């Protein structure tokens, strides 16, 4: 190191997660540019602010390549500390290699149940937990008048790690809130035909759907629902419904769909609105993720400053059991395992915009009418 701090980040620049990877790359670059504009990170020992340099390596959206990307960042690029990539399995691979080299690895966008069993010393995670995340729809329903609450909700999840994780969480949450699913079945990722599933949903007389799946799969599902003349008043999607592409692919048909997110530009926190505007200015659409990635870098910068170095043990002490008040996702409180919970967001699509519904949104929920009544 010496007169700069080198931060490495494996990012999915290519491969199936490249879409998310690009948003992540953008957010990290913004964060680094912002801190450097402020003169860098104050390191007490050096007695001055040190500028930050970001080195990004492609992980090709695969685990083996995350590992070798980190090997390369550490061994060849000689980075001091690391920011994470995206998704649970990739970050598990990343955290293990980083641990081996005693480089701190700051993670977001992985579920705690994936990462916590590793008992890592040199990585920390903030994200929402499928548990509370899965309670969001039920929380929303609780606030509805009795007669508008779904009677026969359906659970539809893709066959992926996150889909399975969420599926279990939804089942637990349903039990807690006293609902039973009238339909509960996964589909194979990348399916092209959902007609049989829709037929079954119709037969089950479902009036709400909780759907966890990729954007492409979810769009295909909704299109086919429309083609076959089936709709539910409450359609809540995870992972697949928040992207701008979701709206692009469905146009007006995206209205009424509820969606998750890690973040919202409507958050009242310092810098959130401005970050959202910057993203919109550059890409002509809004994002419900860049804030989380940006905050990931913010936490790391602040932790380095508190630790006074990039030494993994020192950064560990600066994060575990500590609080970070000023981030674009709001205050974060890390527990003794190094995990901090952020709330899961629920927004409803309306005329191409995410309207914040939960938590503390100002938007009032609109149930979806039948297709021919819209």
């Amino acid at each position, binding site marked *: 190191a010496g007169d700069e701090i080198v931060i490495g980040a494996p990012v999915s*620049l*290519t*491969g199936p997660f490249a879409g998310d990877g690009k948003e992540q790359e953008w957010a990290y670059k913004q964060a680094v540019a912002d801190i450097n504009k402020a003169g860098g990170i104050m390191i007490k020992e050096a007695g001055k602010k040190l500028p930050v340099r970001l080195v*990004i*390596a*492609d992980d*090709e959206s*695969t*685990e*083996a*390549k995350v*590992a*070798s*990307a980190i*090997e*390369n960042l550490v*061994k*060849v690029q000689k980075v001091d500390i690391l920011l994470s990539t995206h998704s*649970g*399995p990739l970050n*598990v*691979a990343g955290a*293990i290699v980083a*641990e*081996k080299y005693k480089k701190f690895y700051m993670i977001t966008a992985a579920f705690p149940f*994936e990462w916590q*069993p*590793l*008992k890592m010393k040199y990585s920390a995670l903030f994200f929402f937990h499928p548990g509370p995340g899965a309670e969001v729809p039920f929380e929303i329903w609780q606030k509805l008048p009795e007669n508008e609450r779904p009677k026969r909700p359906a659970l539809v999840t893709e*066959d*992926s*790690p996150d*889909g*399975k*994780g969420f599926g279990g969480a939804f089942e637990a949450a349903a039990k807690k809130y006293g609902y039973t699913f009238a339909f509960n079945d996964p589909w*194979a990722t990348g399916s092209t035909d959902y007609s049989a599933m829709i037929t079954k949903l119709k037969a089950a007389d479902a009036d709400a759907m909780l759907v966890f799946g990729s954007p492409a799969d979810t769009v295909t599902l909704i299109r086919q629902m429309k083609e076959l003349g089936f709709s539910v008043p409450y359609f809540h999607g995870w992972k697949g419904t928040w992207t701008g592409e979701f709206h692009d692919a469905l146009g007006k048909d995206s209205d009424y769909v509820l969606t998750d997110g890690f973040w919202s530009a409507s958050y009242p926190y310092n810098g959130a609105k401005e970050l959202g505007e910057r993203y919109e200015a550059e890409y002509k659409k809004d994002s419900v993720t860049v804030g989380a990635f940006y905050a990931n870098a913010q936490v790391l910068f602040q932790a380095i400053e508190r630790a006074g170095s990039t030494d993994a043990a020192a950064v560990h002490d600066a994060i575990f059991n500590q609080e970070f008040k000023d981030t674009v996702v709001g205050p974060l409180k890390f527990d003794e395992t190094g995990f901090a919970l952020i709330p899961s967001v629920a927004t409803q699509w309306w005329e191409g915009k995410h309207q914040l519904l939960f938590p503390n949104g100002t938007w009032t929920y609109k149930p979806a009418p039948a297709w021919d009544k819209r």
Partner: protein
Amino acid sequence: MANVSWKWAAALLTIILALVPFWPGAIDSYLLSFLFFVFIYAVMAQGWNLVAGFGGQISLGSHAFFGLGAYTTAILWSGNYLWGSLYETFPRIYYFDPVTMVLSGLVAALAAALIGLPLLSKLRGDYFALGTLGFGEIVKVIFVNGGDFTGGAFGVIAPSSTFETLMPHYWTGLGLTVGTAVAIGWLMRSRYGLALIAVRDDEMAASANGINTLKVKVAAFAGSAFIAGLAGSLYSYYIFHVGPDSVFNLDWMLLPLMMTVVGGTGTILGPVLGAFIMYAVFDVARIIVPDYHPIISGLTIILAMLFLPKGLVRKILPMSVARN
């Protein structure tokens, strides 16, 4: 004569590779992890070469056996299923336990034998290739739906706290690379090798001359799966998380296949050479042009196939030597 000098060259290369870790600073260099991955791919390539190069049965299912090996190790290692965590009782002994590795190979080999018997007795050529491809997909779906035992779609996590250095991985990788090459070299000189080549050259004539062709083919298929299982086990010791999307990824089949062909199918040195060169090309491209490197990889494959269709080893060695 040429034969002998190539053996010396291979031996010399082995010695150099064995000395790499003793080079000052080598342990902290990227070279070790680079070579570690080369070894994994070389072992996979060698395994594919056994059944496809020498046996003439093009298999497109080696990723399934890689994954089976990886899962076996991870499941035994995480130890929640059979007899409690061996690892927690004997962390030092259990780490890199050769018994688990061999077991992983055996599980893969057993699966190969079971599926190989019907596939190889019924299917030839392209049909067999397609069948193995389908088998790979089925295994993946089974593991995704395997419940707690396979960890479902997320997979299995093994405890990683003893992972402090890459050295055991490097040595094991080197050992497997050299070991499989020597073992296959020896095998091909044995009566079994004679039968394998006979079956590849002309199956009907082979059976008319007393060779149980099914047995020979299944053995080669299982042997190749055993090798893939070992590679999967080693990978599992490195990555600590074994999930269906990662270990049943088609890349584990396509890349070794490509490396073998680039190096020289049906030769002993080819797969190793191919793994080294292709992995180097991919890695360098990834570092130099991170946004575009798969384009470069795609181009490299195409160019290599257009200009080196017989493989490097045959390009630089006379045919008769290359075969041994």
